[in-house]
């Protein structure tokens, strides 16, 4: 079974802190994604990566950066957390175009 894991289920951070969210997949997938999920807004793509060290902005990249140094690991970085970044963050991975994306359990981030 494909497994996508995220470093934390719940996280509480203070405004201005640097926050790292990590995602690891075990299926050798080329593509990895970070989404943000908010009630009434669905899932919105923040960034995705199609190869090691390669990244592409999604629909809402402002305030975020990403890092992919190894194929199995994709990190989302909030350089200076703000209260409007309080949300559920979902990581996903996938292989070929048209194949499904496999999701991690999510990290619920609260910024106070």
């Amino acid at each position, binding site marked *: 079974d494909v497994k996508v894991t995220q470093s934390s289920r719940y996280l509480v951070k203070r405004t201005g802190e640097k926050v790292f969210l990590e995602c690891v997949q075990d299926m050798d997938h080329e593509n990895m*994604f970070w*989404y943000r999920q908010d009630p009434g807004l*669905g*899932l*919105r793509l923040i960034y*995705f990566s199609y190869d090691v060290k390669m990244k592409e902005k999604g629909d809402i990249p402002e305030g975020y950066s990403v890092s992919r140094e190894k194929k199995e690991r994709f990190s989302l970085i909030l350089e200076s957390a703000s209260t409007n970044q309080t949300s559920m963050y979902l990581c996903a991975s996938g292989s070929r175009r*048209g194949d499904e994306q496999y999701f991690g359990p999510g990290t619920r981030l609260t910024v106070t």
Partner: protein
Amino acid sequence: AQTVTQSQPEMSVQEAETVTLSCTYDTSESNYYLFWYKQPPSRQMILVIRQEAYKQQNATENRFSVNFQKAAKSFSLKISDSQLGDTAMYFCAPGGSNYKLTFGKGTLLTVNP
């Protein structure tokens, strides 16, 4: 760019009955894929069903089936013999020439005993 509309924010159904969740989308691509994902309360997002746009035959997966109307850009999900475990948020998501999916805002389905 793709857009997705799920016009029913919430729905409810009695156990054992049938329910249909609607989804319309817009895309400029000719070759694309369509997905329905399910997110149970406090649980992981999982794939329900997948449809390839070039296939005319509607996809089915046990109690789940789709009504894919390509010309109308409509992709509805039918759940037959609803079960309590079907209670979840359901997302429609088309995918295009890149690897990205565009998700709708979701429909919260509650199955009542």
